[in-house]
């Protein structure tokens, strides 16, 4: 399969934008400049980038507690995202939400929230709205392997299949749910098979291969637009950092709960390095090309951090705003 230069460049830029901003949070988290819980998605960028690259602006996505990548990939503003993590008034949720509540209706990001599984049925609803209105919009629900324990997923799978709703369920299987390895929360590692008894199409993908994710997502979204949804995509991946915060394990304890050899093995499968290799060897990119892309993003990210730091916190007089819509 060949890919347009534009597509390859976009995928690369999106993944880099996510990675560089994520890594930019590490320092300010450690020095307590950022205090809200931050779940970094370093290592998982290919899924957000691949899936969102096939979506239109008016398609919908919902995320979870680890959604910086989803937000950026769907076209959310970098400045607004960084400012929200810093809990500033200029953040996409005006400092009311923090890292776990990235919401921007203008790019179709209808929400992210830390209640595990909490947004799955809302994505179902967004898909239902497209179905009722008869538009060709699609909704994507991003959730982790941990969310497969919640009953709401089964309920949503059933209803989506029943009405053939245009929804893509994207499970980012990073093999851990906080301190528990997947084998401690499920008997079968084959998460994608959850969809099959409901009559849905389910696939497992290498979630660190952005081109594979792109291809599967493209197919899935097309099926949805043609009324042949829903589709369930399980994307295998690994977070390079801790569950919350920057630790390579679990914040606060420095007790590694994941085997060092396993972490090392997965670092070798870094999705960005992998795409770089492809771009250089088969994509017709030179290393200068890649450096140029990186330089632009470096500037963008550092501008976003400056913007966030210079932005005011919400004024306490405005505490009671936004409880009810007028």
């Amino acid at each position, binding site marked *: 399969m060949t890919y347009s230069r534009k597509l390859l460049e976009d995928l690369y830029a999106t993944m880099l934008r996510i990675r560089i901003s994520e890594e930019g949070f590490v320092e300010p988290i450690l020095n307590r400049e950022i205090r*809200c*819980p931050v779940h970094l998605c370093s290592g998982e960028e290919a899924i957000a980038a691949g899936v969102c690259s096939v979506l239109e602006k008016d398609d919908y996505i919902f995320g979870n507690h680890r959604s910086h990548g989803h937000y950026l990939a769907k076209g959310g503003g970098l400045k607004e995202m960084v400012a929200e993590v810093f*809990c500033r008034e200029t953040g996409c949720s005006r400092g009311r939400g*923090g890292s776990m509540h990235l919401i921007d209706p203008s790019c179709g990001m209808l929400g992210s929230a830390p*209640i595990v599984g909490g947004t799955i049925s809302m994505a179902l609803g967004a898909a239902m709205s497209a179905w009722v209105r008869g538009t060709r919009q699609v909704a994507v629900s991003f959730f982790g392997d941990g969310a497969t324990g919640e009953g709401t997923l089964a309920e949503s799978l059933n209803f989506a299949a029943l009405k053939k709703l245009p929804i893509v369920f994207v499970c980012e299987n990073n093999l851990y749910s906080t301190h528990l390895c997947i084998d401690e929360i499920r008997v079968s590692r084959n998460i994608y098979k959850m969809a099959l008894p409901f009559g849905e199409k389910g696939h497992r993908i290498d979630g660190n291969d952005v081109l594979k994710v792109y291809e599967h997502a493209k197919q899935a979204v097309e099926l949805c637009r043609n009324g042949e949804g829903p589709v369930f995509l399980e994307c295998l991946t690994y977070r390079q950092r801790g569950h919350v915060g920057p630790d390579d394990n679990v914040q606060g304890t420095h007790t590694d709960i994941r085997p060092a050899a396993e972490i090392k093995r997965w670092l070798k499968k870094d999705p960005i390095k992998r795409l770089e290799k492809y771009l250089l060897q088969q994509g017709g990119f030179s290393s200068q090309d890649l450096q140029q892309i990186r330089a632009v993003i470096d500037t963008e990210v550092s501008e976003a951090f400056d913007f966030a730091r210079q932005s005011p916190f919400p004024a*306490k007089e405005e505490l009671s705003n936004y409880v009810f819509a007028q």
Partner: protein
Amino acid sequence: MERDETVMLIGQGVKSPWYVGNTAQGLLARFGARRVIDTPVSENAMTGAAVGAALAGMRPIVEHPRMDFMLYAIDPIVNEAANWFYMNGGKLPVPAVIWGVINRGGEQGAQHSQALHALFAHIPGLKVVMPATPADAKGLMVAAVQDNNPVVFIDDRWLYGLEEVVPEEFYSIPLGKGVIRRQGSDVTIVAVSYMVREALKAAEELAQHGIEAEIIDPRTVKPLDFDLIHKSLQKTGRLVVADGGWKTCGVAAEIAALAAEKAFSCLRAPVLRVTLPDLPAPASRTLEAAYYPVSADIVTAVNRLVKPCHEEGMLLHRVSYAAQ
């Protein structure tokens, strides 16, 4: 768990070295993987399982590291556990403890901060326990486990830093018996859970200005030891209720209503509530600082009562009423 083999602990993070403030540390090694179970993220099923196990002869404790997550379990708690004994005509009790932790602050935002005790206290058939000290946490947990009813046991994470000598021996503190944390004659402050600490700070400051506050820690929100509050009101005639939940239809509202219903003749001033405003929790630290009530808010409330100004229209009437 040593004394009673039917007691078991099931919940998220019970084997983790960092979840839930280490409350379950060492239990797995001591009691084994059948009685100490770390669970998938499945609050509804796990809480329902605790209820079912209770019906089948166990005394399970099911733990939710943030009580926000317990909302997935609202059906087994409210529809099932709370009603079961009544629905079966008193034949089969539900001796389950549902343990939830309030874990707010730190810019965690609306879904990681909710203090939902009033919601559960509203439901007939549930008891709601809220310890304010380490020694109470032990005695009340023992009582909750021994109780034959579903008990919602709610910890405030902000109390987890408290240090206090906890008696080694086995003891329980009866559900429904409050305690006076500080003696005083000028005003009664009923403070729930974490707010006991803020009330104690407030009382110190008030004492410097010659105002002696009596602090009552009800320990259990339901059943509520109103007799203790009533006795205190007979002495002080003034009531401030400090609760870390929301104002409307909250625990403070309930205590204020009981005061009006049962102790009206003692009251020399209106009852004041120090609670959260009726808003979701904001993330930003500037807004959090304005959102969470602290000792200064209690001091302000007490000052309003002991230095009455004439705008409180009803005040003079109440004073004369009390004097009769």
